[in-house]
C-alpha cells in the first residue's frame, strides 16, 4: 500500500468522513458540509488522494433535468490507509464541522 500522502488535519477530516460510510459514493459539496472545508481546500485534497490511487471517482448517471454530479469513494487501499491514519490521530477528528447546525 502506498503511504506517501501527507497527513494534515484537513486530510484526516476528509478520510474520517469517507470512513463514516465506507461503501457510499459521496458528493463534493456533501463532504464540504460535513467537514467544514471550503472547496478550495477540499478539492486539492481529493485530487491528491486520487493521484495516489486512494480515491476513485465516477460520474453520476444522468437524470433528466439535473446535471450528473462527480462522486468520490475510497479505494480498498484508500480505506486501509484511512483506517490506519484515523487510528493514529483520533483526536484530529474531534473538531466541530464549521457548517454544523447552519440551516441551508
Amino acid at each position: 500500500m502506498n503511504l506517501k500522502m501527507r497527513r494534515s488535519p484537513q486530510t484526516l477530516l476528509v478520510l474520517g468522513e469517507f470512513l463514516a460510510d465506507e461503501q457510499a459514493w459521496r458528493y463534493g459539496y456533501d463532504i464540504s458540509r460535513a467537514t467544514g472545508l471550503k472547496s478550495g481546500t477540499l478539492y486539492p485534497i481529493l485530487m491528491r488522494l486520487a493521484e495516489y490511487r486512494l480515491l476513485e471517482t465516477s460520474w453520476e448517471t444522468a437524470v433528466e433535468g439535473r446535471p450528473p454530479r462527480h462522486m468520490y469513494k475510497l479505494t480498498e487501499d484508500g480505506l486501509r490507509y484511512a483506517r490506519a491514519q484515523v487510528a493514529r490521530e483520533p483526536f484530529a477528528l474531534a473538531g466541530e464541522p464549521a457548517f454544523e447546525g447552519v440551516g441551508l
Partner: protein
Amino acid sequence: MTILRRLAMRIAEEAVERAKPRCKEWAEGLEREVAFIESDWRALGWAIGSVRVLFQNPPKPLGNSAEIARAGRLFAGWREHVPPVIFLIMAMQVFNNGLRVVLPTCRTGPLGRAGFAIAAVSAAYLAVVGWMDSRMRERPEDMDDGAWIEFYRLEMVRLRDLYAGLGALFSAAIFLFCAAEIFGLEGLTLPYLTVCMIAFCMFLAWLSPRPAERFQQKIDDVDSILRQGGEA
C-alpha cells in the same frame, strides 16, 4: 436566477474552460455542485474556491529510488546554474526603498516614506531567506544513487526547516512588501486602487502553497519509498 448565482455559475464555468487537462474533470465536478448549493452566497464562495483548482499542479509523486536520485541530480544542477534570484531582486529592493526613505530629494509624504521603509524591511527579510534558500550543501562527487538520495533528502529537510523556522513568514512578507510598495507610490490617491491591489496580493498569497509543507511532502515521499525497499 439571482445575480450572485449567475456570477457563481460564470466563475465555475470559466474555471472549467481554463483548467489544465489533468484538472478538468475536477473543475467540472466543482462546477456541477454549484447547482446543488441552496445559498447563493455559499454557491459564490464555492465557485471562487474552484479557481484554486486551476493552480493545482501537484508534482508527479516519486516512484522509486532511481527517481529520487535523478531528482537529487536535477536539484543540484538547477541550484548550481541558476543565480539566487530572490536574494538578488530583494537586495536591490532594500537598496532602492532605503534610498527613497533617507534621501531628502525624494518627493513623497510621511505615508509614502513609511511605505518604503516597510517595503525595505520586508525586502531585507526576503533577501535573507532567499540567500539561505540558495545555500546548497556540497553535491556528492560519487555517481552512486545512494549518495544522491541522501543528498536530496537532506536538502529537503534543510529547506523544510528553513521555511518552518526563519522563513515561516515568507508569504506574509511578500504580501507586506507589495502592500507597502503600493502605499509608497507617489501620487497614489485612489483608495479603491489600493484596496484592489491589496486584495490581489492576498489572493496570490492564498494561492501560493506553503513551502514547508511542500518540502515535507517530498521528505515523506522519499521515506516511504525507502521503507518499501526502493519501489513505491
